[in-house]
């Protein structure tokens, strides 16, 4: 018991919003100042972000330096809408880190991202020592207007970027999966895909499963493996304690659907 009290790896901290940059109509990039001790995380671990008066939602830390922490918010409901428009000086709460780290070997990485998966990709890009000649991110959205300056942010973090959307103004006209017609995933040491389940499932036949990581996105309630809300469909895995990242083959063989 003494050890547990000394080495608890999950904690709650208050945080002050010190920066909020709107990147597009649906994405905001927030800089937070941690006001209490908060354990370090590794990708693709996540945190629960509590907005007073609203709910707590699972989010990925895009990056951290000392007591400064950055999160990318994609608007998906009332809580994320409030968070995306939150004023500097506001206080929020965080708890985590939750889930397990999953770091692929190698130094050339392909990221396939959609929706709120961008934040997870940013975390990997900064943690894996990416540079634009070694890492490529394919960022997909339905509409061109959603993309805004997210690609510039991804490049700033250290990855080259290709955009895909159902608009001729994107680099690729189509989805993230369509973008793979001109990219050989086999050239990379690992493929990391983060996005909605439909997107991930459509990648199964297009990427080498043994060296691909799927980072799942799900409804999370307790975040600590007790309530059972985040059961991965078709498997006995729980996203919050077994994931959120899984090797694609492991998921497919476990019966994920």
């Amino acid at each position, binding site marked *: *018991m003494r050890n*547990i*009290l000394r080495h*608890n790896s*999950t*904690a*709650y901290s*208050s945080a*002050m919003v010190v920066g909020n940059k709107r990147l597009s109509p649906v994405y905001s990039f927030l800089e937070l100042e941690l*006001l209490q001790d908060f354990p370090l995380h590794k990708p693709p671990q996540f945190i*629960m972000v*509590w907005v*007073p*008066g609203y*709910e*707590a*939602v699972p989010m990925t830390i895009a990056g951290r330096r000392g007591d400064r922490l950055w999160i990318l918010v994609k608007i998906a409901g009332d809580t994320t809408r409030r968070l995306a428009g939150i004023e500097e000086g506001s*206080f*929020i*709460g965080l*708890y985590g880190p939750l889930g397990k780290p999953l770091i692929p070997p190698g130094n050339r990485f392909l990221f396939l991202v959609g929706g709120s998966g961008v934040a997870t990709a940013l975390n990997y890009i900064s943690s894996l020592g990416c540079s634009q000649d070694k890492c490529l991110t394919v960022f997909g959205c339905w509409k061109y207007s959603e993309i805004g300056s997210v690609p510039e942010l991804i490049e700033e973090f250290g990855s080259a970027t290709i955009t895909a959307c159902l608009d001729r103004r994107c680099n690729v006209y189509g989805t993230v999966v369509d973008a793979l017609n001109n990219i050989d995933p086999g050239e990379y040491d690992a493929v990391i895909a983060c996005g909605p389940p439909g997107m991930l499932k459509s990648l199964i036949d297009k990427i080498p499963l043994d060296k691909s990581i799927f980072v799942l996105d799900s409804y*999370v*309630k*307790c*975040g*600590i*493996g*007790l*309530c*059972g*809300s985040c*059961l991965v469909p078709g*498997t*006995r895995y*729980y996203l919050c*304690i077994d994931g959120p990242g899984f090797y694609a083959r492991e998921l497919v063989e476990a019966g994920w659907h």
Partner: protein
Amino acid sequence: MDGLEVVVTGIKLSHPIMNASGVLASTPEGVARLIDAGVSAVVTKTLTKEPREGYKTPITIPLPIGLLNAVGLANPGIEAVGKLVETGHSLGKPVIVSIGGRDPEEFLYLAEKALEAGADALELNLSCPHTPGYGVDAAKTIKTIKEVVKNTASISNKPVWAKLGYSRLLVKEAGAALEAGASALVLINTIPGMKIDVYALKPILSHGYGGLSGPAIHPIAVYSIYMVYREYKPEIIGAGGAVDWETAIELLAAGAKAVQIATAFHLKGYNIIKEIINGIKQYLKQTKRKNITEIIGSATK
């Protein structure tokens, strides 16, 4: 035979460690996951008459001393009991069905459903501290505790476990539950608690207050079990802050025959049961005891 077998209300257990209600066992997958983790019996989530969504997030807050939660008795409703029991039995483990009614009649209805499904025992949730209408609210007085237990025990051909929380009246409440026909007591539930964010100046849990569990309440659990065991020598299943072999042994020495764990899964992961069992085996060897039953209640003698 490794000396870890215990018999609790006639149910043979290969070792004394099971999960506490509230952990995963609201789906067949959750039941299977707990059995994979090594529990000797599965205790289901508290099942209510209708399904319950539970509270909005945040429903848990990790604290340096344990865990605060207000889940709000989220569960699929009593109609899901069949699949839970069937999964546990197909994997060779007894299933204790936890039920939560709002009044003695509802407890009776839930008990009938659980018994029809083949429950090995019923655990009456008389102590959830944070769901208005249920738990402590449904067992407000000694008279109500007696009524709920008596009604349920009168129709049950299986053991009835009454789960009580700490209160100044615990010894009296325990006596009432036993007198009304409880085969065993589960002691204790979480303790009411609250955490306020000092910058937002608001309670963090969406429900405002919740139940505190984990290391913070372990001494209270030891004390509660000790006092009740000393008074009545009943069968007790201990719950409250067991996170390793040492804290589990303390509950046994105070009078528990078996131990339920929950927060330990969060603090140490799902290998914790194997760790606790290995620790207990080492302890028995170190203290030259052949059987874990030699420990039960030994601190009260």
